């Protein structure tokens, strides 16, 4: 009963916190709300007319939505890069960053689920996917695995921070006996969500571009580069706009994680390119299409040739200690790395998987305005969710929010 009262008060207090803020904060939230409304409007058009308002066709049947979904699963998984040292290895440095990281994971997962729902042809019958009520094709369909692990991960990432914040809110220390097992599970779980998502593509013998054993590991490497890179950027913003203290040491340690992951990612990229282009087979056509265009069709060239140089540049910058320890340069490197991986793992992975089609036919994919609208709306939703979570968490952590008896 008491706990319930505390919880009620926590909700009330956090509602107060998120509705109050500087002018900049209000502008930011208003912009996000506007974008969400635009996204909802676009989605209503899509619901009404069907998915024909998107750029997808029978040839390229997954597009911007699934690209973003794939990328964001990686971002969500990356929260573990902060959880592991903090809770499991007891590294104090990460303690402040970890709540932000988990908030980011929650926001990313919300976006993932929203993207999947946006991609569905029949959202009104989604209950068919609920285990027990519908028919859940487990374990045959990797998609059902994905549903399970994503929702499980969402649950873990909500409960652990909630518990810690709930304790701190009451001015008590969080009991490590309670959250350490959860943290342990989440470490494995994060790897699982990303591997399972990779298996979603990897398990399709029909798509040789995806059907390679390196896809899973590469997913992990790129996720552990892009996710923490985003966390660094977010921490930078939080550092400059709130009184929440984040030490330089923390950011430097996260930067180290980003560096190693980016390097591994680059090695895997080289290995993949070698395999596709040194001894090209019939199965290398998708890669040819992606990097050089096929039969005069080259819609993806600008994308991938933006991504590759950015990726290399970022990795080089991060590799040199001098450059990496200069925060301005670090932020820049993180930003371009984030963009590069977003392209590489979104557009650069999903679309060429469908091109050329099973019988060598090429229909190119260009997202439509409505699709982009929905996508931006969902990103705004993610940013919105994250802002709310981060603001509450920071409020509690710096002691502004406390339970008054």
């Amino acid at each position, binding site marked *: 009963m008491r706990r319930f009262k505390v919880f009620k008060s926590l909700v009330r207090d956090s509602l107060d916190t998120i509705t109050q803020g500087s002018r900049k904060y209000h502008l930011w939230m208003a912009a996000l709300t506007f974008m969400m409304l635009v996204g909802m409007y676009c989605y209503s058009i899509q619901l009404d007319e*069907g*998915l*024909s308002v998107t750029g997808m066709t029978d040839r390229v049947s997954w597009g911007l939505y699934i690209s973003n979904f794939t990328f964001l699963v990686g971002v969500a998984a990356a929260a573990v890069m902060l959880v592991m040292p903090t809770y499991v290895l007891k590294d104090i440095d990460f303690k402040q960053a970890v709540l932000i990281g988990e908030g980011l994971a929650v926001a990313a997962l919300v976006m993932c689920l929203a993207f999947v729902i946006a*991609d569905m042809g*029949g959202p009104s019958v989604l209950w068919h996917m609920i285990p027990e009520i519908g028919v859940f094709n487990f374990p045959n*369909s990797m998609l059902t695995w994905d549903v399970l692990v994503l929702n499980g991960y969402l649950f873990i990432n909500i409960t652990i921070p909630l518990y810690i914040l709930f304790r701190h809110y009451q001015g008590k220390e969080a009991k490590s006996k309670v959250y350490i097992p959860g943290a342990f599970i989440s470490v494995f779980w994060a790897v699982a969500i990303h591997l399972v998502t990779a298996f979603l593509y990897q398990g399709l013998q029909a798509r040789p571009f995806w059907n390679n054993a390196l896809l899973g590991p590469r997913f992990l490497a790129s996720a552990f580069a892009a996710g923490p890179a985003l966390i660094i950027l977010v921490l930078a913003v939080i550092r400059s706009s709130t009184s929440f203290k984040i030490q330089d040491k923390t950011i430097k340690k996260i930067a180290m994680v980003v560096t190693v992951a980016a390097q591994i990612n680059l090695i895997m990229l080289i290995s993949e390119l070698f395999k596709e282009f040194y001894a090209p087979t019939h199965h290398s056509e998708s890669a040819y299409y992606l990097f050089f265009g096929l039969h005069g069709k080259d819609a993806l060239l600008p994308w991938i040739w933006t991504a590759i140089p950015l990726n290399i540049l970022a990795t080089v910058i991060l590799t040199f200690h001098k450059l990496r320890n200069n925060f301005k340069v670090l932020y820049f490197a993180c930003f371009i790395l984030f963009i590069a991986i977003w392209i590489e793992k979104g557009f650069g992975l999903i679309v060429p998987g469908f091109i050329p089609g099973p019988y*060598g036919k090429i229909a190119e994919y260009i997202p439509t305005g409505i699709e982009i609208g929905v996508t931006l709306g969902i990103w705004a939703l993610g940013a919105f969710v994250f802002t709310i979570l981060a603001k509450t968490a920071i409020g509690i952590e710096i002691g502004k929010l406390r339970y008054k008896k």
Partner: protein
Amino acid sequence: MSSDNKKWFSLNIGRKNQETSSSCSCGKQSGGCGGHDHEEIKHIEERKDGFEQVFDVKMNRRSAFKQLAASLAIGAGAVSTSCSMFSDDESKEKAQIDWEEQFKGNYKLMTDEEKKATVDRLVRSYQLRTGKTISMSSKNAEENVLFGYAFNISKCQGYMDCVSACVEENNQDRNSQMQYIRIHEMKDGNGFNFNESDDNYYHEVPAEGHFYMGTQCFHCDNPPCVNVCPVQATWREDDGLVVVDYDWCVGCRYCMAACPYDGRRFNWSKPEVPEEEINKNQHYLGNRLRKKGVMEKCTFCVQRSRAGKNPACVEACPTGARIFGNLLDPNSTIRWVLENKKVFRLREDLGTEPKFWYFMD
């Protein structure tokens, strides 16, 4: 729907195997043993129909699920029709049908009575909406039948009569010009080089120096599309047909990505067929009218093949290049082709085991 006659895995958290309420003394699932009078069958239908099929668990959970379902319905908008002022019996009936259709179970798991009930509802719904009567079948797979198909590459002249017949038979969307069959025009001397083939030619055929090869759904015996479906909305029937329950499909298009043969089509917008062109001889798993946002595919014209007829493409082909039949009948023509001609299948290395063979004279 006791879980021991399921041939697949499903999560079974907290649900005990329970005696099927509709089974009778002879041990068969409902309705099979005779002795039921009409009343009783109807009673079973009422009890186990529609979405109750999936909610047929312990009572307390069942009511909870019902509430959940009702709240979902609000989201689905189905409730808006059923809650509106009932102007007359017809709209009330329509609302009732819509409601039951929205929450019916997966066709694959239905008993024969439930299959019949949903088919009756669909026929009635069409009648209420258009005033016209269609006939829809829910005929199950025949015993001792496994359908197979052979395509004679030497015979095909590229006329595309099969494509036309297929579209007309199967009520495919006219706006997007959906077609299940593709005829690939290949250059002599290039072998089976799909990259240099043209599947959308328009010139006099057969063109000099070319040959023709048709593709469609191959009804694989080990279909990758079936494995990946998260809700079992697509499956392989006992007679080998790979079918889709259009009402159960959630439209995730995973099956489309998994198919190595371009056998599947998606309804990107609401499919439209002019009323006078609608083929009214339908099957639930076959050519009944689809809605937007669901998958569909070639079913070897299940409405025809399960009645002993040839699929529309076979019947339309003027050259006899298409051969269809029962693979289990040792005297069937398809078996003779498989045993006496040099047959091959596309991408056999993928292990999909298509039931669609190619051969040459």
